[in-house]
């Protein structure tokens, strides 16, 4: 199967690989996994006091499309508020990376990772 140029670019030069201390109150951590292909994705957001995402890092074990989807998302969320970040749709990711239908679940994984991270942040700050 042929990967698009954008997928290859993100796969070969992934942006923002790594992680933050998950116990830091300003860090939101989202973990998700796709049973169909065994992919695991960790997305972490560094959220400022004003609710704006200052930085993002990811670590993904999976195929090229899963890595590209998470890499792209770390670029997209920066500068957005956490609520704006949850508006990113898997279809936007799939379109940007020109993912074929069999790889759509990789973009869903990335969307769910954002939602999981934001939920983690809200949970941390609810009490």
């Amino acid at each position: 199967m042929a990967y698009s140029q954008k997928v290859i670019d993100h796969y070969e030069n992934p942006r923002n690989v790594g992680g933050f201390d998950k116990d830091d109150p300003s860090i939101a951590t989202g973990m998700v996994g796709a049973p169909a292909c065994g992919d695991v994705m960790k997305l972490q957001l560094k959220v400022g006091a004003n609710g704006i995402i200052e930085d993002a890092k990811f670590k993904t074990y999976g195929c090229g499309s899963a890595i590209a989807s998470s890499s792209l998302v770390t670029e997209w969320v920066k500068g957005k508020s956490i609520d704006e970040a949850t508006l990113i749709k898997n279809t936007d990711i799939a379109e940007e990376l020109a993912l074929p239908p069999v790889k759509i679940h990789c973009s869903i994984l990335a969307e769910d990772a954002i939602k999981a991270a934001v939920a983690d942040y809200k949970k941390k700050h609810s009490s």
Partner: protein
Amino acid sequence: MNYFELYNLPAQFEIDLDKLKQHYQTLQKLTHPDKFASASEQQKRMYLTKNSQVNDAYSVLRMPVARGEHLLELRGIELANEQDTVGDVGFLMEQMEWREALEDADSIKVLEQLVADNHKTIQKQEYEIAQLLLKNTESDNHEAAQELRKMKFMIKLASEIDSKLERISDVS
């Protein structure tokens, strides 16, 4: 279609794999299209359909995850869509650690240890799934479906360990 019935096996998770193989070979012979060269077109089509059912059923019954899912389907349990993501953080953290260990593994010895650990985990999962499916209550069946989803991660991991082991063995 009930694959257990087709193979004359009890509809349960733990099956006799030798018996399954024997029945497969018998059913293969009985339905093999080559045997019916002189049959009518209609009969040939019928045997062809039967033959592909025999093959489909075999590929499902011989693999634990597929067998478990088939059993749950027969029990009317709706299985989660493949696109549904898993959100069990503890489990996913463990998966992350497995992947990191695999990434760091740089010798045949370390990889063989991973194979052994992975195998042990899968056996444990299989045992737990068997217990849940044996109880066969609504909640146990749902839990079994969850455990089957988790087992898929371990099986995927097993194949990744194997391919890294192959690569390293080729070099040395």
